[in-house]
């Protein structure tokens, strides 16, 4: 027995490394601002969608309120940079940790709820967080938001930060899924009581995933603030944002390793191509895709791809 069953196949490793190198080199040959920014935004969405999937797909608890952590992380980072002149990356980190802790605060008691009830609670959490944080203008600058000054050179470099984040998130997704932790999470997802019967401590593991997922969303919030130099609570905490993560995750392939990344790419592509003439259409279009996925291809785009390549489907949504 050479390689353990959970190690990545060699060609996957090569493809991943190759893609990383290529993507890293793109800005050096092409200085088109539009594509540069689009790619950066895509890396950000990939990271967020993957982080959402750790809770939604691996643990099986679909959150409709994940924007709450993006907002918390984003505004903490912004406030730190603006009021205390904390360096950008440190601010992102602190924002991330606080967002992760916030996720624990609401998530730990709420994860006792199963399935749809947890999801409904997350809608409440997301919206309550938005309203309360909008009111708490010390943190957020009220409904008019906050500006974060970012040096233009640094802004250009955000591309590579984004690429790095996305790569880390993908590696983390892979490691999570294939590691004993991932197996335990899927066991909890399958049958939480039976998981306990074979020694899985579900509360501890759920807390871990909550924190990791929340922290990553928080870091994304910080990134978002630095990228746009301006954030407002209605957008960062918004229900639309939370919905987008659900859509990216489920349409891409909930529970799969890279599905949400695919979902994020398609989401952004669609959003960009419709923005010119049919800017409000994409949400409804995505609703239609979601419908089709749920009815016909529960593993989303990944499932579709596996089917087309006639590979066995080793996952279940």
């Amino acid at each position, binding site marked *: 027995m050479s390689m353990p*069953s*959970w190690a990545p196949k060699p060609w996957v490793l090569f493809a991943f490394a190759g893609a990383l190198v290529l993507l890293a080199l793109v800005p050096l040959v092409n200085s088109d601002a539009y594509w540069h920014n689009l790619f950066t935004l895509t890396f950000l969405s990939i990271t967020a969608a993957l982080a959402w999937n750790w809770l939604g797909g691996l643990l099986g608890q679909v959150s409709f309120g994940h924007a709450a952590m993006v907002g918390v992380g984003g505004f903490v980072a912004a406030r730190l940079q603006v009021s205390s002149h904390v360096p950008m990356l440190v601010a992102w980190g602190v924002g991330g940790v606080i967002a992760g802790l916030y996720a624990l605060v609401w998530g730990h008691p709420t994860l006792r709820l199963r399935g749809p009830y947890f999801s409904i609670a997350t809608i409440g959490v997301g919206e309550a967080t938005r309203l309360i944080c909008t009111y708490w203008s010390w943190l957020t600058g009220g409904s008019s938001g906050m500006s974060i000054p970012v040096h233009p050179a640094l802004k250009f470099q955000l591309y590579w930060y984004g690429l790095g984040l996305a790569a880390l998130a993908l590696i983390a997704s892979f490691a999570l899924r294939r590691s004993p932790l991932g197996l*335990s999470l899927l066991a909890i997802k*399958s*049958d939480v009581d039976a998981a306990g019967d074979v*020694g899985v401590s*579900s509360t501890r593991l759920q807390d871990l995933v909550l924190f990791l997922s929340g922290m990553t969303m928080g870091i994304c919030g910080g990134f978002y603030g630095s990228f746009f130099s301006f954030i407002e609570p209605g957008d960062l905490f918004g229900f639309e944002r939370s919905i987008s993560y659900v859509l990216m995750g489920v349409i891409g392939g909930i529970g799969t390793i890279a599905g949400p990344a695919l979902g994020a790419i398609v989401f952004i592509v669609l959003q960009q191509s419709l923005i010119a003439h049919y800017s409000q259409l994409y949400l409804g279009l995505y609703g239609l895709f979601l419908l089709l996925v749920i009815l016909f291809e529960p593993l989303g785009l990944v499932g579709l791809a596996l089917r087309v390549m006639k590979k066995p489907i080793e*996952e279940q949504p």
Partner: protein
Amino acid sequence: MIRAEGLVKRYGGLRAVDGVTFKLEPGQILGLIGPNGAGKSTCFAMLAGSTPPTEGRVFLGDEELTGLPAFRAARAGVVRTHQIVRPFAHLTLLENCTVAAVQCAKLGHKGADTFAREMLRFAGLDARRNDLPAALTLAGRKRLEMARALSCAPKVLLLDEVIAGVNPAEAQEMGTLILRARDERKVSIVMTEHVMPAVMRLCEHVVVLDAGKLIASGKPKEVVQEPAVIAAYLGKARANAG
């Protein structure tokens, strides 16, 4: 090995289990039998940690397990299977067992993988280790329950009606598997079962419950001849018929 003292479980006004005491010796296969509704599953649940006893205590050797949540009981070495099979649908057979090995048997990932394969081989499922449980028949899934429980490297195995619901040939094989588990894997076993031939064949000692109370204890052949036991089983039938 495992000792239950004065176990009581109350649900509101109902005493599902009313003062049950028994002992499992190391290397023994103990049968827990009784008519429907006697409290066997509830006893089981209290031993495994699925539900805490209202009164009474549970010991594993000298260690007290009373009221510990299921995952702690499992890590201490008391693992149960389920009457209605509960495989991890999202994991392959191998992964089902690897999880157990990692969490209970405290093995590293690679070691757990190896041990899990060994248990699957023991249960005759190694060839299908990369399948999802949905691909198995009921008998296959019952074997998976066994293999997964054994992957925990338990000291005590609690088998909840593993034999019921499969055809006679499979039942015979399950029985052999249980005996091999005791001999090769060195586990002590408590099993509840309705299928009497299996009880006769496998259990060295039997404990009979009726309406939450322990009414008999001893060798299977002797116990089933006791008037109290016969009355318990037939009494229900007579009451239902009359």
